[in-house]
């Protein structure tokens, strides 16, 4: 068995909804059936084989070659298996994913890992705004799982995030951890303005001190035992966070305008 590979034939002018192409949906389908699946593209439906060259047969291991920013909803709702994307992805990468693994070698657009419930999403590149947040109007963002971003993330990382772990090796934009409900976000680079805006609970781990607004309050320097446990659980992850072993932090709590039980921990 070799990985089921979809190679994009030509540059796209219209966006494509890739949500049917998950390991769960394709399991036990023949090559002909897979080729005949229709993907929504604007107001048209296009057959998979009109867009992609298809090779391989292992539906649990899907590879997308020549990926680009117009491929939306890759791995949406997936419950098992693995999707590897080379070249980039559009919006809603791994939307409401429950289990399994997505590896993207390239950049993703907005709403990557939105409402993620489980599994792992690893982006070897940058992501757009609203990483791991909620569908507009919904009140809970990411609810579980793990997101690793080796590049930078846009604004509103973890907006209304409820549970799970986000590890960003680069920088994050403005309103990082805004309206966060719980969970853990780590950012190795810098963060933009209004970090932790409306943060209710949860942990934001930073490596340098950002500009903090007045409803985030200093709680002093501490050696927190849970950090040792947390970094031990990160060992073996494909991230620079796997090599961190520190537990001395400055603890800021907030956002006091919104309950104030969240924390921003900054390594001394």
């Amino acid at each position, binding site marked *: 068995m070799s990985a089921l590979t979809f190679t994009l034939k030509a540059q796209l002018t219209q966006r494509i909804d890739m949500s049917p192409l998950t390991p769960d949906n394709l399991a036990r389908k023949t090559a002909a059936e897979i080729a005949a699946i229709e993907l929504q593209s604007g107001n048209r439906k296009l057959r998979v084989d009109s867009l992609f060259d298809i090779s391989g047969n292992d539906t649990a291991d899907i590879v997308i070659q020549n990926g680009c920013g117009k491929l939306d909803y890759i791995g949406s709702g997936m419950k098992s298996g693995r999707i590897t994307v080379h070249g980039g992805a559009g919006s809603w990468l791994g939307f409401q994913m429950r289990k399994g693994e997505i590896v993207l070698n390239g950049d993703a657009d907005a709403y990557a890992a939105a409402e993620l419930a489980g599994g792992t999403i690893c982006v070897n590149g940058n992501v757009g705004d609203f990483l791991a947040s909620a569908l507009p109007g919904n009140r809970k963002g990411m609810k579980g799982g793990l997101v690793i971003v080796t590049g930078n993330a846009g604004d509103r990382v973890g907006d209304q995030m409820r*549970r799970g772990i986000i590890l960003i090796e680069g920088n994050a934009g403005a309103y990082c951890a805004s309206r966060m409900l*719980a969970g*853990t976000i780590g950012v190795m680079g810098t963060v933009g303005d209004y970090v932790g805006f409306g943060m209710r*609970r949860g*942990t934001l781990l930073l490596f340098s001190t950002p500009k903090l607004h007045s409803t985030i309050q200093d709680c002093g320097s*501490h*050696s*927190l*035992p*849970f950090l*040792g*446990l*947390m970094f*031990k*659980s990160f060992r073996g992850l494909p991230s620079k966070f796997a090599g961190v072993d520190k537990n001395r932090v400055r603890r800021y709590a907030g956002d006091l305008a919104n309950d104030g*039980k969240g*924390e921003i921990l900054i390594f001394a």
Partner: protein
Amino acid sequence: MIINGVTIDDTFAEAFGMRGTRVIITAQNHKWANIAATAMTGFATSVIACGVEAGIERQLNPAETPDGRPGVSVLMFAMGSAVLMKQLETRMGQCILTCPTTAAFSGIDEGYPEITRINLGKNLRFFGDGFQISKQFGGKRYWRVPVMDGEFMTEETTGMVRAVGGGNFLILAESQPQALAACEAAIEAMKQIPNVIMPFPGGVVRSGSKVGSKYKSLIASTNDAFCPTLKGITKTDLSPEIESVMEIVIDGLSDADIRKATRAGIAAACELGATKGIKRISAGNYGGKLGQFHFKLREIMA
């Protein structure tokens, strides 16, 4: 059967099905982990009045503990799951939560056919009065409770399994110091066996009991058949040269663990031998009708 001049009685120890759990206590150093564990396992010699039988299983080095600090593993046994859960919670609350720098983790996660998750820090978190923080790593939930020395960290649950309690053997010697020396040697050897504890003070009990009493209000009383000062006036089990008898009681996570510990303990006692005054090894039972587990001494030592 005679080992090094010591007679092994053709009898058996009678043990009962119990519920058992393990908790891993860590602290800044072994000193404080031991202080916490000693407090937690205090007044836990017998289920009759203490609710649980508990003891320190062994010391853990930093590489063996979840948070990479020095630790101690504690075993607790009770006759029923409700008592065990209640005792675990109160002892966690009064002995571990209160002890500086400690943290508590689950000690049983796999390796048994039936593991029930019971509360470890699940209710202790409310001590945090709303400032407690939950964290999930590697599929486990932990609680961070702000306390005056910093933060108390505890796993939410630990595992409870079906266990065995009341394994035992008796050491019969020519004098009290000799009986105690044999017990000390036996306990030292048995401490090396995993999954067992000897819950009595120093692992040794000198007041072995029989079922019933002449007094209506007592369900158990002194085991006069093994009391050396009553040799002449009761239906004694002792030969004239026996002057002192001591018992070692063993609780273990499985009957195989108790078998191993019994063998190690008796072997160590017999090593002192008849020349050091050790004459006989026996065991306590109730005729075999009460307990589900029988540990036949000669079979174990064969």
